[in-house]
Each structure stands twice: as C-alpha cells, then as structure tokens.
C-alpha cells in the first residue's frame, strides 16, 4: 500500500535521468496498433472489412425481407383463346330419325359436282335441291327431307339449346331467301337482318358463316364476343379490347394463318408469377434473382454465410494446425517426422477433385442444405490445416533454440507450461496474420465450390452461389445486377482480409520501423 502511494507521489516529481519512468513510452499493444494504422492499405482493408461485416450481419436485420422470401409480379401472357375459321365447306345436318352417312355425303358431293339434281345409291334415289346460295337439301325419293347441306351455320344463342333440325332448316331457308320470318315445328320465328333467330322476341340462335371454337375446355364464347370478333376480322384489326358482361376488360390479339385459313385469337391474361430477374427498383435496389428473391437481401445473407464459413473453417484449420504443428515442433525427432509426412500427404491430396466427389455424393444423398454447409466447413478445415501446422512448427523450431527456452529448461519448468506460456504466445502474431490471409482464400474457395454447385445450396445463399446463378451469357449480359454486386462483395472482402493481413504482419514485426 505504502509502496503504491510512493509511486503515485513520484509521478508528480521530476524523475532523475536514471529513472526509466522519466520518459513515457508506447506500450507494446499501442506500438502494434500504431504501426498498423500507419499502413494506409491496412486501414483501407480494415474499413472494407468493417463495411462488409456491417453489410452482412447488420444489413439482414435492417432489411424488411427474409433471405428466402420470394416476390411475385403480374405478367400478361398471350394465351390462345379461340380459333376462328370462315366456313367454306358444306356442313350437314341430318333430319331427326334419318341417316345420312359419309358415303351418301360423298355421293351427294359427286352429284353436286356434276351438276345433277338426282343420284342413286344402293338402289335408292335421292334428290338434291338447291334452296339458296350454298344451301342444299337432300330428300329421298318419297320426298322426305333427309338432310341439309349448308355453309352458313346456325348457332345456338348463349345459354340456349342447339336448335332442332326443322328450325335450322327453316331458318337457313329463310336466311338464304331473304325472308324475315318462318315457322317450324309449330313455332313462329323471325329472322332479323343480322341473322338472329328470334322466337317470341328472344334470340334462340343466329346464323353466321364464321366458326368460333374455344381453345380451352370450359370456355364459352358469347355471341356478343363473336360479333365483335367478326367485326374485327372484317376490318382487319389485329388487336381489340372487349369488355364482357362482368365488366372485365381484356385485350385480344388476332393473327391470321393463311395456310390454315384460321384466325387465332389470343387473350392477354394476367398471371401471377415469381418476379424473376426483376430490374433494380425502389423496392429491390439490386433487383431480384431468378427465384424472385431480393438480391440485396440475398447478398447480405450470402455474406453472412461466406464470412461465417470462412471463420469456422479457419478456426478448424488453426486448432488442428496449432496442435499438430506445436507437437511436431516441440518434440521433434520421429514425432516431427511423422506429422510432417502426414502434412506432405495432405499437400499431395488434390483437394478440388476430392471436394467435387464429396459434393456430388452429398447431392446424391440429398443432404439437408444446413448439414451440408456443416460438412463443407469440416472438409475445408480438414484439408486446410497443413499450412498452419507447418508455420507453427517452423516458428516453434526456431523459438525452441532461443535462449529463453533454454532458460525455462534450466529453471525446471514443466513441458506443458513451456509450450503454452512461452512458445505459443510467441507464435500468435504470425498465426493471426496467416489466419487473416487464410480467411480471404477460404472465402474464395467456398465461392468457387458454390459456383460449381458443390457448396452452399438453396435456400441458403453465399456470394459464390449467387454468382453461380449466372450460367449463361444471356443472363450475364442482361442481368448484370445478379453477379456484379456479388463479385464486388467477394472482391472487397478478400482484398480487405489480405490488406489487413499484410498490415498486421508489418505491425507485429518489430524490425519494421515504419
């Protein structure tokens, strides 16, 4: 106590020139810090790292989206809606209870072609009567109408049953002859100029030369739409809008296939899809990737994965490396020989093929992505320790010959204490430097593996796997926002680690004066 008091008093006094408290010096830690901060590149590297860490670890919390959150967008697809053909062939309608097979049809056409009005088949005679333009009726010898052949088609009105044969026949007859009313089956019908067949004022059908066939099941085409469409076709319009009775407006695209003589009408339908390769916008500053996930958020979470993998791998490497290198360096002789030969073997292992094979095996076994990540770290760590073991061994070999180690031996200090109190602390500076540099290369390694599809798997992201989305030149040239930011993140992080590593090496080296 009194000693302390004296000390504090003395600081107030002027020290004699012999006293080393006279001059304040830099503490060892301050010296290292100072040397580090004098190195501009190292400071730049440190800033880069801090930015990347904040970006990766804090950014994820700040952003409102989750890492695997997918975004949707509405796109308009041109869906084949209906096909329209102008009927240029004769169609047949057979009277109730009659038969008019294909052979009879063929015979009919033959007769029509020859300009005959009668023909016989299998001993029976048939008469064909031209009732109007492109409208014929075929009757048996006894005068009963067997069938009609026509080109204008009688359609049922929306929600109505197909008109009966008699109605069709009379309607077509009236239509062909310009009549406005007719009666059939005991009912009276009128025919307006647009070809509508009305019964008691309600439209039960209409006559039209166009055939409108829906392309999808369950779609009924309204009369109104057909007429609109017909108008459009007649005016040669390629696009038109139609509002149905429910008020939904859709646009349709009409194209004509000259060879098939078919107008195909495509409906622009809105569809709700993943926002794939969305361009950068306010909502997604870096756009979205091919799964419709926000790129910026993916980058942040990817950084987290990349950095964490880097740290864990280096930690595994360091633990194994320090233990084996330390044992090897301190004990020497056959232990050293054995461990160093193991190191040599590890150096010989072509790590890339091994990892590719293991990656493929994991693919095959459908390993859970999270467990897969763990395996990846273990594999990388296990393949990476020999470098550190060598470094530690070399350091310890040279330190072991130093006089302070002889002194510990002369003082009879335990072996474990000698290793952990005297040797290891002196290796730590070099170790920190190597680990920092190793972090950079591990991140690159992980990125390479992820790029090859062997590393981190969906739904997790890493910078490497983000870049690997770019697997063709189209994506590369069109969607720059997918790979350039990830590449820059990777560059900054690795460069940062290397700069800091270099800076630390210089700072720890007491021989470096500046």
């Amino acid at each position: 106590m009194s000693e302390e008091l004296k000390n504090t008093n003395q600081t107030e006094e002027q020290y004699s020139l012999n006293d080393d408290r006279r001059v304040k010096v830099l503490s060892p830690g301050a010296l290292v810090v100072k040397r580090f901060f004098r190195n501009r590149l190292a400071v730049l590297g440190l800033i880069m790292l801090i930015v990347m860490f904040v970006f990766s670890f804090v950014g994820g919390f700040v952003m409102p989206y989750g890492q695997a959150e997918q975004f949707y967008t509405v796109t308009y697809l041109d869906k084949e809606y209906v096909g329209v053909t102008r009927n240029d062939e004769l169609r047949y309608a057979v009277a109730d209870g009659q038969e008019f097979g294909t052979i009879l049809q063929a015979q009919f056409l033959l007769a029509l072609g020859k300009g005959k009005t009668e023909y016989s088949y299998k001993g029976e005679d048939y008469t064909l009567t031209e009732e109007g333009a492109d409208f014929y009726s075929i009757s048996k010898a006894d005068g009963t109408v067997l069938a009609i052949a026509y080109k204008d088609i009688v359609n049922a009105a929306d929600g109505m049953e197909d008109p009966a044969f008699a109605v069709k026949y009379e309607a077509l007859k009236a239509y062909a002859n310009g009549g406005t009313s007719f009666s059939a089956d005991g009912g009276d019908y009128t025919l307006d100029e647009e070809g509508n067949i009305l019964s008691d004022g309600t439209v039960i059908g209409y006559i039209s030369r166009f055939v409108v066939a829906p392309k999808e099941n369950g779609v009924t085409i309204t009369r109104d739409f057909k007429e609109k469409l017909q108008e459009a076709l007649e005016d040669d319009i390629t696009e038109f809008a139609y509002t149905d009775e429910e008020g939904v407006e859709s646009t349709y695209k009409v194209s004509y296939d000259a060879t098939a003589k078919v107008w195909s009408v495509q409906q622009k339908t809105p569809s709700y899809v993943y926002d794939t390769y969305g361009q950068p916008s306010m909502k997604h500053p870096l756009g979205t990737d091919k799964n419709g996930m926000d790129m910026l958020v993916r980058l942040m979470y990817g950084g987290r994965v990349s950095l964490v993998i880097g740290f864990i791998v280096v930690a595994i490497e360091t633990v194994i490396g320090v233990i084996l290198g330390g044992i090897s360096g301190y004990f020497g002789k056959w232990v050293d020989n054995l461990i160093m030969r193991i190191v040599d073997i590890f150096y010989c292992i072509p790590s890339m093929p091994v990892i590719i094979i293991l990656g493929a095996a994991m693919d095959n076994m459908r390993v859970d992505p999270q467990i897969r990540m763990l395996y990846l770290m273990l594999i990388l760590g296990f393949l990476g320790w020999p470098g550190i073991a060598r470094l530690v061994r070399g350091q310890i070999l040279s330190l072991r010959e130093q006089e302070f180690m002889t002194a510990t031996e002369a003082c009879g200090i335990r072996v474990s204490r000698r290793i952990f109190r005297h040797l290891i602390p002196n290796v730590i500076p070099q170790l920190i430097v190597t680990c920092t540099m190793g972090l950079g290369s591990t991140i690159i390694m992980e990125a390479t593996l992820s790029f090859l599809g062997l590393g981190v798997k969906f739904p997790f992201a890493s910078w490497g796997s983000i870049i690997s989305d770019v697997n063709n030149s189209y994506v590369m040239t069109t969607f720059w926002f997918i790979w350039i930011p990830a590449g820059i993140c990777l560059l900054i992080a690795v460069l940062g680690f290397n700069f800091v590593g270099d800076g630390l090496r210089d700072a720890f080296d007491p021989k470096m004066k500046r």
Partner: protein
Amino acid sequence: MAKKKAEGYLSGKESRRISRANRKITNELEKKRKRKKVPESEYLTTMHDPANAVEFDNLHTYFFTDAGTVKSVDGVSFEVPVGKTVGVVGESGCGKSVTSLSLMQLLQRPQGQVVEGEIRLNLGDKAYDVAKMPYEAVQHLRGNFVSMIFQEPMTSLNPVFRIGAQLNEVIELHDGEGKSKEDVKKRTIELLEMVGIANSEGVYEMFPHELSGGMRQRVCIAMALACNPKVIIADEPTTALDVTIQAQVLDLLRNLKDKINSSIMFITHDLGVIAEMADYVVVMYAGRIVEKGTAEDIFYHPAHPYTIGLMASKPVVGRQVDKLYSIPGKVPNPINMPDYCYFKDRCEMCVEKCSGEYPDEISISPTHKVSCYRYYDGQMPEDVGPAVAVEAEKEPVKAAAEAGQGPAEAAVKAGQKPKKSAAKAGQRTAKAAKGGKAQ
C-alpha cells in the same frame, strides 16, 4: 490496478499528437532533400581549417520517433584532420554512430534527419556542406570521398557474389573510367594484398561464407580503401571479432594508416582499441560531446567525470582491484532531455553549479576541451598519467573529485552567470539524490 499499469505509457492522444508533429517536420525536410538538380553553390562551403578533412559544426541529428523526438546528436562539433585518426568513444545510444551516418547521409529515413548544423567535407579543391546536400548529390560522395567499414563483416558482404566480383564492382563504379577488366582485377588483387590477404588470387574467387570473420573484415577494409577515399569511417570494425583476430585487424589498420593518406573516423566503445588507434579522441555521452582532445589528453588527463568513470570501470589485465568502480545509474532515454548536465544524475563529483543549464565547452588546454562545470575557473585536471592502467582506480576519481570541489565553489562565488534559482536547483539535486538512493 489498471491505472497503475498504464503509468509510464503514452496515451493514444499524446502519441497521435507526436506522430502528427513528426510527420509535419519530416515531410518538409524530406521534400528539401529529395530535390533534383540543386545548384552546387547551395552546398558549397569553405573549410575553417584546410588541414581538416571533415569538420562537424554544431551538428544536430534528431530521430522523430513515435515516443518523441530523440536528439541522437545534439550540437556536436569536432574536426577530423587530414591523415589523422579520430576515435569516437561512447556507450550505445550516445550518438557516435549517428554522427558518422549523418556524414554519409545514411540515416534511417524519414525519421532520422539532420536538422541543424554543418558537416564540412574537404574534397581537396573545394568543400561541401554534407548536411545541406540533397540525396542525389551525396550519392557521388559515398565511396569516392567517404567510405565505411561496418561492424558486421558477415552482413556487409553480399553472400551470392564472389569476393573479386564485389571488389571489382566498387572499383568500376567509382574509379573505373578508362580501365580495362584486367586493370580492375589487378587493382583488386593489389587491394587484397594490401590488407594482408596472402592468398589474394584464391580469395578473389571465393564467396564470403568461405572466409572467416577476420578475413571478411579485411575484405571490407579493402573495399573501403578501393577508391582512395578522403575519409574512412570505421564503425566498430573489431567488435564482432575475437581478441586474437581483433589484434590482427588492428595491426593491419595501424599499418594502413601510415600507408594511405586518408583520415579515419574510428568509432568504438572499447577504450583499449581507441588508445591503440586514435590520434584524437572524442568522448560522447547522450548525444553530446563531453570531452575531446588528443589521445594523451584523454588517457592521461581525463577531465570529465564520465571519462574518468569509464576508464575506471573497465577492468584492466594486470591491475588488481577489490571492487570495480562502476558509474551508477544508466544511460538516459534520450527523449525530452532536461536542460542540465546529462551526466549529473550519475555523477559522483557534482558541484552546486551542476543543477544549472547544460555546461558549455571549455578549453583546458589548446587541444583539450571538456563540458563540465568543474573546470570553469581554469582548474586543470589531475595528471593521472599512464597510471590509470596500473593504479587502483579509486584514487584518481577521488582526487579529481577533490579537485573539482574547489573550482565549482569559486565559480559560484564569482557569480559567473548565477542560475535561475539556486534554491530550486538545490532542491532538485536533493531529490535526485533521494531517487538515486531509492534505486
């Protein structure tokens, strides 16, 4: 506890302030030195005495370190006469090497800077002020006019080149105009023979690692002699060698001294070596010259308590003492030196005046100068004669102390520049004494 630990260390704020100040100064000085195409007139000067090869005049060489400004050389003035050997003695950190490096402009840049003073180098027909020369111009001086022999012969030779090649290179670089390869080789062989290497042809083809330390140092000496420099700086040339090898090298240097017309600036901490080699001796302490004079002056009439103490504390073969005299305390850390005699806190011959400002240099004979208050009234130092080598060391010290007591009092009485506050000074002395005791 934490506070106690922090004691004696600079805080981050202080250290940043120091760094900023250092950067400002060194940048400015560096800019000046790095200029190209500086007219010769800027550093042309005249020697105060044409018989001198080098004149150091009030040289200040500072190192701007993180812990503060280290005044490694703080107002050093001495001359190296043509053809003579000047020995510079002092303990490590006293600035003896820095003085020579200032002459060569080989200071560790950018921290090390000559901030004040002149170093006049006699080139025969003209003289240059090395302190003002830009780097570009100094390059031409090295080797041609000033050369250096280093302490470590192992590290000053390039291990991958043959001895012959290294020597040839030096000759070709500085002296090679109009010389054929054979001429250069002839000169190299001649040099090797000059430094006493019998097997000169064989050594010519050897690599440095094939030679012993002594031989290597000979090669280094040959290299330094290659261009007949005006001044040779020998920075502890024998410290790394064994006694028997040191004897060989010293013999060689002594013989060479007569053969060549170069001045030698011999830097060492070994008084025995100095006595053997030097015509003039400069004793340095903490960046200042405490005493200078001829070898006889210094060895037979040491005046400064430091010189006396230094001689007494070195055991000498054949001189039996019961207890070796030792200078108490330690060499001060050269940062923030106070303005009083730097040796005061270690001095056992202190007089009252010593608490005053740093003593000026005073001549006690035409050749002998000393910075000590004990000689301010013209008192002469005790003639210890060669006795110092044989007699018990306590005697001269005591005698000198007694001799010193008188003059100092007299000086005070005479009122020779009374110091700021005698009372305060006295108090400080008392404190210092207490501090010393505590230690």
